[in-house]
């Protein structure tokens, strides 16, 4: 019995490590996608798009592993929540990586053009998102709810910056018809980043569920 528990614990640890690996890759693809846009580096954008395959593969792996654990160990209470949380977090991470791919596609689309404005707020937004991603995963590893709750106020910053970027871009479009196409693309990027932050707060919510067994909305 004890031995069985020991095996199960190490299986849960393995699940956790797969998830951490996935979060590492997601972090990379989020960072690189905005970097590719900032430098208009198409090569980097292509790498982000390619990296998405690895993230997708890991999501499938995590799902299958989780299903196997549920089927063979029939976990209850917190153990069950641990597995469910892993599935949910991996799906959020996968979405974040997808959104990064979308940003990389924007780089590909506007290649050869000059940026209508130097990118300042978008990298700032990315920086906050990256920090949020770190905090959400930290809260998962340490099962620390107070960390997860920090995400709420950070998400507010993201929403605020998002609105500011939109207003600025609309102003640019109004003044310069030539810039409409690219401004629209940049608005998409801001939107993608706003969605990224939402997925990260979802991770925070999952952690709260894992620890307390209760649901709490972090973004409203």
């Amino acid at each position, binding site marked *: 019995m004890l031995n069985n528990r020991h095996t199960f614990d190490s299986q849960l640890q393995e699940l956790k490590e797969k998830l*951490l*690996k996935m*979060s*590492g*890759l997601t*972090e*990379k693809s989020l*960072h690189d996608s905005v970097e590719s846009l900032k430098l208009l580096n198409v090569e980097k954008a292509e790498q982000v798009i390619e990296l998405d395959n690895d993230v997708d593969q890991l999501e499938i792996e995590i799902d299958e592993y989780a299903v196997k654990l549920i089927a063979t160990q029939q976990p209850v209470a917190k153990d069950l929540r641990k597995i469910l949380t892993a599935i949910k977090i991996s799906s959020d991470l996968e979405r974040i990586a997808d959104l990064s791919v979308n940003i990389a596609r924007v780089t590909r689309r506007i290649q050869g053009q000059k940026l209508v404005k130097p990118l300042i707020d978008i990298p700032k937004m990315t920086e906050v998102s*990256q*920090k949020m991603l770190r905090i959400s995963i930290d809260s998962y590893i340490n099962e620390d709810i107070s960390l997860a709750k920090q995400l709420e106020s950070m998400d507010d910053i993201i929403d605020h910056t998002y609105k500011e970027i939109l207003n600025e871009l609309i102003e640019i479009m109004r003044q310069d018809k030539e810039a409409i196409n690219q401004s629209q693309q940049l608005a998409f990027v801001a939107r993608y980043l706003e969605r990224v932050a939402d997925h990260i707060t979802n991770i925070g919510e999952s952690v709260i569920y894992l620890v307390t067994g209760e649901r709490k909305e972090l973004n409203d």
Partner: protein
Amino acid sequence: MKNGVNRYRRRITLIFVLLILSILFTFYAYLKFDLKLEQSLINLFLVKYIWIFVLVIISFVILGNILMSKTLHLFHEISRTIQKILNRSVTSNLLQSAKDSDDINIAGAMNKLAEHIEKQLQIIEHNETRLHGVLENMSNGLLLVEKDRKIVLVNRAIEELLGYATNDLVGKRHIEATRHSEMSDTIEECFRTRGKIEKELILYYPREKILLANFAPMKSETNEILGVVVILNDITDFRKLEKIRRDFVANVSHELKTPLTSIKGFAETLLDGAYEDNETSLYFLNIINTESDRLLKIVKDLLDLSKIESNNITLNKEPFLLKNLVKLLLITLEKQITIHQVNIQMEMDDELMIVADKSHISQILINLMNNAISYTPINSDIVISARTSHNFYEISVKDNGIGINKENLDRIFERFYRVDKARTREKGGTGLGLAIVKHLVEAHRGNIYVDSEIGKGTVFTIQLPKEK
């Protein structure tokens, strides 16, 4: 030592044997007389003899106690000394309480042991301090992962690199601590292949950093793998410098190629027959002349720059009146001033005397004034002002021209950096002017500052320290 302990043991055993014998004897006598004598006789016997036995027993107990207490006292001392050794406050006072030769033997041995342990501990502590000092002061980040994949050792540099405190790193599995899939994969690879691995990794958090990472297996004497040592070297700045150098080479080639292409183009056209037409050939030759002048200017600027950079310049410091120098420079720039129709004002004391390398100061001022004239609309004002304080001179050139935005402000002193590529070339700049200014000011151990606002204008201020 062993002999001494045995003798104590024998003494104690003897006491116990005697005690038991006396009790048995008493009992035996009691039983025996009980069977054979009348009650009164027994009573008589008890009164007469039992006291002897009781006395014998008591005396043995007392004797035993005295002997035991001496021994116990020594054991007590030993245990106290051991406690002291554990608490790291060893004083060799064990000998004082030792009385006979056996005690002295044990105490002496204990003292020796204590000294030995103390010495060993000092060596260990010394080594540990040394190791700690080396690790903490290493500029490279270090991480030791043991066989169970947990991190057991980190240094301060790694905290800065990964953005986590030591407490958050030690004891965690490596993927939990590094959060870097490639780094973790390589650690695993190192465990598997048992060979050294070197690779470049990019960190994304808290800041983007490029790391040169070395992974080395730590092996036991039996060649069993015990752990993996990871050493991280931050090479971000190095890569940045490399990029600047690459950019510079690319820029130089580009800047030289542009005038050369047009010289070659026009020369070829002339050779192809255009020389027969006088008017055309004159026009083409003029262009060739202008372009070669530009080429010459770039080459000259490059040479100047490399001379200043290699620190080979000697400063011929001499005192001179700044206002006279500026007036002289204005004459040199007269042609441009008339073309751009700018209004130049001088705000400085007639008597302001500066001690510096006159030719360098003129080059600095010419470059700054040239920029001010070129990037200012017609009919605007340029103010050249100077003042002196007790330890430095301050000269500034202020225009109300187009201005430079914040993103470009940090980079304008880079070689060939142009805020607007097309416009600068059209104005005839080489892209090296401000780089030269900066280096010349630095050669004087001075500082240059720039303050600018788009549409409002730019102020360049140089501060030169006074001679002591």
